[in-house]
């Protein structure tokens, strides 16, 4: 009978980084010949058939199984109790948790959840055999919380997920001109205010035709969005677009319209939009923070401080200098190869081999 390697995450959905990763890992595990199911505490109806509720895990549970626990937000007490009870061998796969201080004054529920999630890390270290991170950056944090056996299993980039035809309305509206793109939840750790300030200089002094396209949902962080909109208004800036949540065809269209991807984020456990930018041939400029330098690994352009005027001039240069932009895009394409399913499969096989399965 095939060895079972299952996965758990409190909830899964299409389109979010962790949900996509869970599905990709399942595909790889099955390709490697393991029996693999996804288990959730809250199962969205559109996911029925693709994942199961943890109440059904009893049928699968066995001391010979490996259960991969995706950890990107705190688990409920019920889940922690369940993990203590089941005899399966467990491994945590850490996607990182935004430091709680970023949510102060913005969302108390998120603040408490982030705080509780970090506290649970230490508890999880006693329940699991190994700690895996989607980046070395995450592994370092696992080590600080008591794990000694560590491993990196990066995010899988599956090009098949981006085959949706780009949304025509988005293309028609935004194609042409200089479009600076950022993709991600409107969350304070991503420092949207820094994007807006850099854009202020770009628009006022370098390229008056520039647009700033901010793609991502503000759900639960509406107060931060209010602040950002007020800032745009106070600076009298035009052409700053908050799109809200977008479909996959709209997302593809925004990447197709983008002249450049700009990140001023201060905390990222990995940075999936960087891979998407690499795939769509969009040059990346990112502030050197958290796991971003590791994800780029020498590709793209990093800046070490938030000198807004210099960032704006750099954007101007990159857009004007075709040769420089071409070299950056080529290097990014090379880096993307490391995240394709074939590459990650090798790393997954190595980690499972170390566990003796």
């Amino acid at each position: 009978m095939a060895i079972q390697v299952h996965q758990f995450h409190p909830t899964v959905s299409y389109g979010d980084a962790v949900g996509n990763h869970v599905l990709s890992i399942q595909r790889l595990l099955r390709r490697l010949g393991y029996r693999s199911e996804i288990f959730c505490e809250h199962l969205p109806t559109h996911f029925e058939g693709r994942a199961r509720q943890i109440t059904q895990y009893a049928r699968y549970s066995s001391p010979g199984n490996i259960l991969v626990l995706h950890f990107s937000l705190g688990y409920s007490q019920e889940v922690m109790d369940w993990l203590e009870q089941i005899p399966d061998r467990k491994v945590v796969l850490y996607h990182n948790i935004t430091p709680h201080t970023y949510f102060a004054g913005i969302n108390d529920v998120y603040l408490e959840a982030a705080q509780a999630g970090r506290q649970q890390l230490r508890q999880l270290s006693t329940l699991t055999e190994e700690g895996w991170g989607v980046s070395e950056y995450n592994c370092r944090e696992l080590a600080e919380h008591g794990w000694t056996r560590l491993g990196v299993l990066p995010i899988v980039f599956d090009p098949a997920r981006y085959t949706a035809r780009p949304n025509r309305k988005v293309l028609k509206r935004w194609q042409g001109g200089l479009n600076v793109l950022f993709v991600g939840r409107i969350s304070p750790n991503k420092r949207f205010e820094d994007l807006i300030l850099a854009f202020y200089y770009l628009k006022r002094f370098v390229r008056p035709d520039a647009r700033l396209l901010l793609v991502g949902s503000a759900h639960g962080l509406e107060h931060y969005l209010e602040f950002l909109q007020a800032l745009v208004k106070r600076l009298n800036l035009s052409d700053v677009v908050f799109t809200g949540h977008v479909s996959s065809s709209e997302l593809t269209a925004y990447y197709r319209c983008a002249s450049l991807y700009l990140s001023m984020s201060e905390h990222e456990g990995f940075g999936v939009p960087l891979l998407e930018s690499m795939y769509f041939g969009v040059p990346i400029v990112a502030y050197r923070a958290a796991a971003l330098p590791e994800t780029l690994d020498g590709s793209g352009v990093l800046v070490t401080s938030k000198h807004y005027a210099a960032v704006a001039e750099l954007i101007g240069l990159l857009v004007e200098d075709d040769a420089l932009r071409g070299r950056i895009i080529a290097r990014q394409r090379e880096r993307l190869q490391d995240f394709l399913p074939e590459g990650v499969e090798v790393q997954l096989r190595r980690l499972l081999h170390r566990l003796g399965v």
Partner: protein
Amino acid sequence: MNKDWLEISDEGVNVQEIMRRIRERIARRDGMVFSGDTENPISVADALWQEMIEDLSGEQGASPTLSIRRRDCDIVPRHYVIDWRIPILGPIHAVVRRIINDEIRRYLMSSLRKQSSLNRRVVQLLRDLEQENARLRQEIEDLRRTQE
């Protein structure tokens, strides 16, 4: 901007030359001020953060029993933005909504401001009373102890 500000790991790219070009471009814009810019944008962002977010986070835990914060007192919708996403019809729709919104605000804003001000005063009064209550309880406790 220090000499290591920019990182491009490509031997074929002269990073120092790019930095020189950036500095040159910044110097060229030096002294350029637009008629609409009266304040430094970074100061504007800091002040707004202070006004809208930091003030509120500082209040957390001010009183364990009275958990009403200034955000809850202020009911004036100062930062409400009416925007559009749909081409052609979107701007028309937004203009209509803005006109209606402005008209409603004309009647409502003064009342909302008065109510917000009253809310703040009531919360402040409750906090003062809470402190006074705690002080008096302590005093009674001390008196009791001295009598025993």
